[in-house]
């Protein structure tokens, strides 16, 4: 399962919409071994293409060096499909090289650069085998944001902290 916070989820979707009709790509880094995607890093699509993406080699080395310095790893590797569904293509599967990562696919085929829902799906890709996984978007804890206008209601049920989007 991929658990991702609302701001990061929104950031990935916004990047995909902005770069449409070209594919957008990037990573969400997190502490090594934690499985927590915490730091969104938008990458340049060196291919600049509606059907292909590739991290720029120099920018990619800089990113990996930064992650090594911070004891991070790429928890999520994302890219968009701009005309097809959010499912890994044969090329995606053939080139997948991070067996521990969540490969997130966003499809902007429905609404392009405009507002509107997107397909947002996540997979593990290990030795050519694709396994889809549930995505849980974690909303900010309402109790951690002080609201001066709120009136405590002892009878209210607490809001669920997360919502499944699959």
């Amino acid at each position, binding site marked *: 399962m991929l658990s991702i916070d609302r701001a990061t989820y929104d950031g990935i979707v916004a990047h995909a919409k902005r770069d449409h009709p070209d594919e957008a790509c990037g*990573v969400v880094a997190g502490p090594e071994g934690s499985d927590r995607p915490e730091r969104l890093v938008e990458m340049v699509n060196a291919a600049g293409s509606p059907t*292909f993406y590739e991290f720029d*080699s120099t920018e990619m*080395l800089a990113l*990996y060096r930064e992650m090594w310095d911070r004891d991070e790893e790429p928890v999520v590797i994302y890219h968009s499909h701009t005309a097809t569904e959010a499912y890994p*293509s044969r090329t*995606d599967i053939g*080139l997948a*090289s*991070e067996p521990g990562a969540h490969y997130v696919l966003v499809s902007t085929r429905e609404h392009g650069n405009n507002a509107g829902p997107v397909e947002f799906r996540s997979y593990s890709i290990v030795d050519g085998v694709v396994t889809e996984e549930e995505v849980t978007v974690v909303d900010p804890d309402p109790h951690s944001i002080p609201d001066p206008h709120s009136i405590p209601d002892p009878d209210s049920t607490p809001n669920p902290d997360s919502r499944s989007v699959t």
Partner: protein
Amino acid sequence: MAVEVRIPTILRTYTGGEKAVHAEGANLGGLIDDLESHHPGLRERLIESGDLRRFVNVYINDEDVRFMGGLEAPLADGDQVVVLPAVAGG
């Protein structure tokens, strides 16, 4: 001539889990031959038809070897080589 080679996660099965290994070579091709002698199977993951694989990035001291002559790129004692599979797809 000892050169440190940073091994990506996906290739650590060839290095017994080591993140970095040392190898020797006057150029990148020689270094990969030396790597292969200690970690059999690694060369095939880096080289195809006598050249570096299209979707494997290799850097010497932070410079992409494609701009340094590829397998002919010269190495000196103390250099650092980083191998990173390209992050790419369709």
